[in-house]
Structures are given as structure tokens and as C-alpha cells.
């Protein structure tokens, strides 16, 4: 019934239709001002906005202030001196550069392929935008800045991760954690959710079991994985001994340490994807799928063309949230590997935490703000490129 008056479905267009005006008028008479839809839209949104606003704005501005200052312990307190962009300068070009950005070396073939591939994709996106006919100065500047930042990130990846003898810095390592962790978690979480919506005995038991890892405090998980990877007393120690590798420390190898962090992250956060996708799948309407089955569609076809499209919006959302959270990874690298060997498995947040522990508050805030900028660029690109396609229905 598309033409029925829908006061609460859209405050704008629907109420301007003839007929619904009369309806709205009647309702305004019968109910008080508090109940009218115009008040309702504010009542729905504002409490949440106010709470976030009150608690988020002040720390955000204050930490920007810290990032632009130099803080020194002094007698009976500390002194704050405004130093402009010195902290950022130090991070990008000075002493902390090799920790944050890593060691730059000329890219290998793989590095060039990555860089040129990513660049070509961005050029394609830009051309499409320019041809789309809805070009505005703000949009153009925003896209130019975003593309510049993403190109710089790609160049860093090509030079450190795929560089001949290059060494990834904390930013590259964090991006690695984010991409591999989020990807694996989504795939495993979706697979498990698809399995546990089937009609199987013990389905509910499996659901609770699959949920378990997320219920444990991240610090605890980090110590638990440290127990498990211990090659003296851990459960896999005899295996290492049998293989004659009892002196080999998994966590002493750069890639071994990174892999251990990723495995821990996947173990810990797959339930997040699992439960969100499960609720999405359980909330869907199965009738279309039943119809597909009657029409002789195969299981894969039903999944690919009916089930998957229905959970694409919630998938896009959960990937974005998990990505944002993964950029802040700290417990596992901090406790499990200590960021080591060297800084091989150190994440950006751990770097910020290290300088913060050394009471370099300004430098710590600068690291955190740099991460905030990177996450904002990546998340904005994701929100512009992915969400409009996945959320078309309710856009």
C-alpha cells in the first residue's frame, strides 16, 4: 500500500501529499504536541547525540592540543609548551619515522603491481566522479585529499612491505592486521552463521560455543595466547620438541610474531562477525528462499542470489565497525609479543602507548592523531565507495 499516509516513515514528502495533510491535521488535534511526529524525530535522535557529544568532543579537542604541545615533567607538576607540528614532524620525518613508517626500500615487482593497481583504481573512481555530472568544489577537494592520502599509504606499503630489504613500520603492520584480521573474521563468521541457521541438532550449543571467545577480556586473551605459545610449558611444546625445534621461538621471528597476533585476533573477534550476521540472517524472511527451492534453484544459487544480498547491508556495516576497531589493536601485540622482535609486530596504538608510558604525552597524542587521520581517510573511502551500493534500499 504505497499511497497510504505514512507520517512516521518520512516526515518530508509523504506528509505533503494531498490527503495525508488532512490525516496529520486530525492527529494533531487528537494528540498533544509532544506526540506529533516533528517532536518525535528529535526525541528519537537527540538523547544519543547529546551523550556522545558531551563525552567525545572535549577529549578530541584536548588531545589535539596535546599533540601540538611538548609536555615536560616539572617540579610539582608539568609544563605544557605549544610546539606546533613538531611532534608530527618528528613522527613523519624525524627520529620516530623508522618506527612509525618503517624502512623505505625500492619496491619489488609485487610492490609496483600493488601501487599501480591501487592507483589505477583510484583514477577510475575519480574519472567516474568527474563524469557523473555532480561535481562540487568541496567534493572535489575532499576527493583530492583522500586520494593523495591513500596514494601515500599505498606508496608506503609498496616500499616497506614489498620493498627489497624494506622493513614495515607500525602503520604498515597495523594495516596488515586490519586487512587480514577483518577479512578472515568475516569469512569464518559468515560461514559459521550460515551453518548454525540450518536445522541441526545441537545448533544452540554450537552458537553459544562460537560466541565464547568474545566474552573474555582482551588482556586475558593476550595472556592466554602467551601461555599457549610458550615453547617450554605450552600445550604445543612437545610438538616443537619432537620436531627438534624446542629452541625455536615462534614469537622471535618477525612473521611468526605477526602471524601469532593475527591468529589471536581472529580467534577473539570472529564471534563479533558471527553474532551480528547470525542476527541478520535470523531476522530475514525465508519465503523467497523457499520459493527459490520450489523453483529448483540449487543451494549455492539460493545463497548467492537470495540470502547473501539480504545480509549485504549488515555485512558492510559490521566490516566497517570491525575495521575501525582493528586499527586500535593493542592488547595482543603488547602482551603476547611485546611488539617484538624489535618493533616487528608493534601496532600504532602500542607505539602511542609506549611513548605515553615514557611520559611523551605530546608525541603519544601525535601518533594517535595520525592514526585517527588514516582511519578517517580509509573509513570515508569505504563509506563513499561501498556503503551507497550496499545500502541502496534505504538510502
Amino acid at each position, binding site marked *: 500500500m504505497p499511497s497510504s499516509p505514512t507520517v*512516521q516513515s518520512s516526515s518530508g514528502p509523504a506528509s505533503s501529499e494531498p490527503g495525508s495533510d488532512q490525516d496529520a491535521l486530525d492527529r494533531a488535534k487528537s494528540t498533544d504536541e509532544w506526540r506529533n511526529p516533528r517532536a518525535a524525530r528529535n526525541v528519537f535522535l537527540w538523547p*544519543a547525540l547529546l551523550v556522545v557529544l558531551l*563525552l567525545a568532543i572535549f577529549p578530541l579537542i584536548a588531545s589535539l592540543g596535546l599533540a601540538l604541545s611538548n609536555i615536560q615533567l616539572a617540579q610539582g607538576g608539568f609544563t605544557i609548551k605549544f610546539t606546533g607540528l613538531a611532534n608530527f614532524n618528528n613522527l613523519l620525518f624525524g627520529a620516530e619515522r623508522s618506527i612509525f613508517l618503517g624502512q623505505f626500500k625500492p619496491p619489488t615487482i609485487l610492490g609496483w603491481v600493488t601501487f599501480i593497481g591501487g592507483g589505477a583504481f583510484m583514477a577510475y573512481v575519480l574519472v567516474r566522479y568527474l563524469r557523473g555530472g555532480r561535481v562540487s568544489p568541496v567534493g572535489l577537494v575532499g576527493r583530492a585529499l583522500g586520494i593523495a592520502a591513500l596514494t601515500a599509504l599505498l606508496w608506503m606499503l609498496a616500499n616497506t612491505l614489498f620493498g627489497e630489504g624494506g622493513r614495515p613500520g607500525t602503520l604498515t603492520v597495523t594495516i596488515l592486521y586490519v586487512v587480514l584480521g577483518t577479512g578472515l573474521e568475516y569469512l569464518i563468521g559468515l560461514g559459521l552463521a550460515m551453518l548454525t541457521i*540450518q536445522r541441526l541438532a545441537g545448533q544452540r550449543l554450537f552458537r553459544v560455543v562460537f560466541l565464547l571467545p568474545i566474552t573474555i577480556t582482551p588482556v586475558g586473551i593476550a595472556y592466554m595466547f602467551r601461555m599457549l605459545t610458550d615453547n617450554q610449558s605450552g600445550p604445543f611444546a612437545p610438538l616443537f620438541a619432537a620436531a627438534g625445534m624446542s629452541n625455536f621461538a615462534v614469537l622471535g621471528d618477525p612473521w611468526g610474531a605477526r602471524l601469532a597476533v593475527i591468529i589471536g585476533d581472529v580467534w577473539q573477534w570472529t564471534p563479533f562477525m558471527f553474532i551480528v550476521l547470525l*542476527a541478520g540472517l535470523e531476522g530475514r524472511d525465508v519465503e523467497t528462499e523457499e520459493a527459490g527451492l520450489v523453483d529448483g534453484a540449487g543451494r549455492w544459487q539460493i545463497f548467492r542470489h537470495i540470502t547473501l544480498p539480504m545480509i549485504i547491508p549488515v555485512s558492510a556495516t559490521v566490516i566497517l565497525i570491525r575495521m575501525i576497531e582493528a586499527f586500535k589493536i593493542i592488547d595482543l601485540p603488547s602482551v603476547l609479543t611485546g611488539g617484538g622482535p624489535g618493533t616487528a609486530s608493534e601496532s600504532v596504538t602500542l607505539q602511542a602507548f609506549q611513548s605515553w608510558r615514557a611520559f611523551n604525552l605530546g608525541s603519544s597524542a601525535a601518533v594517535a592523531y595520525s592514526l585517527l587521520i588514516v582511519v*578517517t581517510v580509509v573509513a570515508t573511502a569505504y563509506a563513499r565507495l561501498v556503503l551507497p551500493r550496499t545500502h541502496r534500499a534505504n538510502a
Partner: protein
Amino acid sequence: MTNPLRKRTVLDLSPRAKVGAYAIMIAWAIVVLFPLYWLFLTSFKQPVQFTGGTYYIPFVDFQPTLDNWKYILVDVGSDTYRPYVNTIVVGFTSALIALVLGSLAAYGLVRYRYRPRVGVIALGLGCTVLAMVAVVLGTPPIVAVVSAIVVLLILTRAIGNRISSARLGNSDISFWLISMRMMPPVAVVIPIYVLFQQIHLLDTHVALIVTYAATNLPIVVWLMSDYFAAIPLELEESASVDGASPYRTFRSIVLPVAVPGLVATFILVLVFAWNEYLIALFLATANAATMPLLVAGQVATRGPQYWYMSVLIVIMVVPVIVMAVILERFISRGILAGAVKG
């Protein structure tokens, strides 16, 4: 469920597929459960058994002991008890607040169109910065906040329309909300600490509850938006034709249908608040200390005391698992299908 006439549905698998499904589920269950088994085992080990080698099965290759449990629950029992209660109070209260406010906002963002003016937002930001500068320069915080709000209101009325007529949309509000989670906590704990110090709420439940509710709200808004958007509009339309107010429609039509999403989201934000460490480290020194602080505090000078830590982690997850078992049944289908047909 055992109706012999029940037709085969998409939810029934062929026998071969069933075997495969069980194989995968059992394999992942082992991946999940083995580390937890190891943790549980460690809680019954003596330090010497822990460091002395690898033991897998109690009574078979080592003699379990209840010493660790006795130490945590009895010897230092009062040190365990208070954080435990704190965690329960803070976790459930903040999760409930986040769920209620977040669902309301999510529903608003799905069903209404908001067009905030860029000019007003810029004014608000400017006033905030000015108020903060004033506080840094020595103005009492309350005076600064109140005068900033007054100035903001006056300016909005006077020139709000003129400085910029550009407007934002719902997706911009959502994105702003989620962007509040992008900042690493390391960078914001000090300002948050100062904030609560100023209003004398350090080391109280309120400080933790408010902070967790605010940090978890964006997640609730984002997840619930998608669950609400998946609800067919006809349901609400028929309610509004019947003359129900928006609040009533939301409470008695929308919420019941969204139960799977609500439950999943509640479990998630409960877990986030339950397990948060860094903010608690700053805001709760003694009275309001939560369990994650206690777990992390088991690191002695000679290294982590895994055996005590394991006991704490085990008793810490029990309430969450009980919640998950109770709530799991609500993440299941049937509610929506019936509602649409009826």
C-alpha cells in the same frame, strides 16, 4: 517440530551436507574450546606444575589443586568480590543505556530525515573550543559551559541561517557517530580523566557507566539501523493508520520484530563494557575498579601469575556466558514471519 508432514525447507540439509556441516562446526568448536580448556586447566595447576613442563589431563598426568581458587575466592576474597560486583553493575547498566538510547537514535535515522545545518555545527564547535580555552585560562568550568551554551543559542538564532545554508544528511550523522570510535583510547584517557576529575566523579560507577555508554552508542546505532531497515515498512504503516503514535509504534511494533538484532547488540555492548581495560585503569582506582584491572594486576615482578589469572578469567566470564545462554533463544526466527502475515 516433529511433524512428519512437515515439508522439506531451505533449512534442512541433505545427509551428506549434514556430515560436512558437523565436521566444520566441531572443528571450529575445538579451535575455540582448546585454549579455554587450557585456561581452565591452568587454574588447577600449582606454579611448579605450570613452569615445570606440559601437562594435559588432570589426575592422569598431574594432581590438580584447588589452592588457586581458594586463594582468589577466600584468602583475598574481599579484593575479588568488589571488582566483581562493580563489573556487573557497570556492565549491565551501561549496556542497557547504550541499547535504549542507541536504538531510539537508530530508528530515528532509519525512518526520518534529518538535515542539520553546517553553519550551526560550525558555531557549536567554535563555542566548544572557546569554552575550553576559557577553562584553560582559569574560568570556572561551569561558568564557561553555561556561557558557551548561551552564546551558541543566541548566535544560532541570530546568524545560524546566514553563515552557511549547506545541510548534512542522515548518513553524515551516522558517520560522525562512528568516527567517535576511531580515536585510540590511549589518546583520550587523559582528557577524560581530567573531565571527571573536574566534576568530582573519579572512581565512581557513574563515570564508568557514562563513558562506556557513550563509547558503545555508535556501535548500537550502526547495528540497529541495519536491523530496523530490514523491517518491512508495511508493519509500521498499518499501525500509523490505526492512529498509533510514533513512540507506540516503535515500542509495540518495531521493537518486538527487532528482537534478534537487539539481543545480539546487547550481548556485544555488554561484553565491550565488561572487558574494557584502559579507561577503567584511569577512571577507577580503588572503589570502582573492575575485573579486567584485577586480571592485568596478576603480573608480579617475577612474571605473570597465570594460575591466579586463569581463576579470575574463568569466574569473570561465567555471568556473560549465562547471559548468552539465556538470550541466545531470542536470536531465532519466526517472530518476523508471523508478524508480516498477520
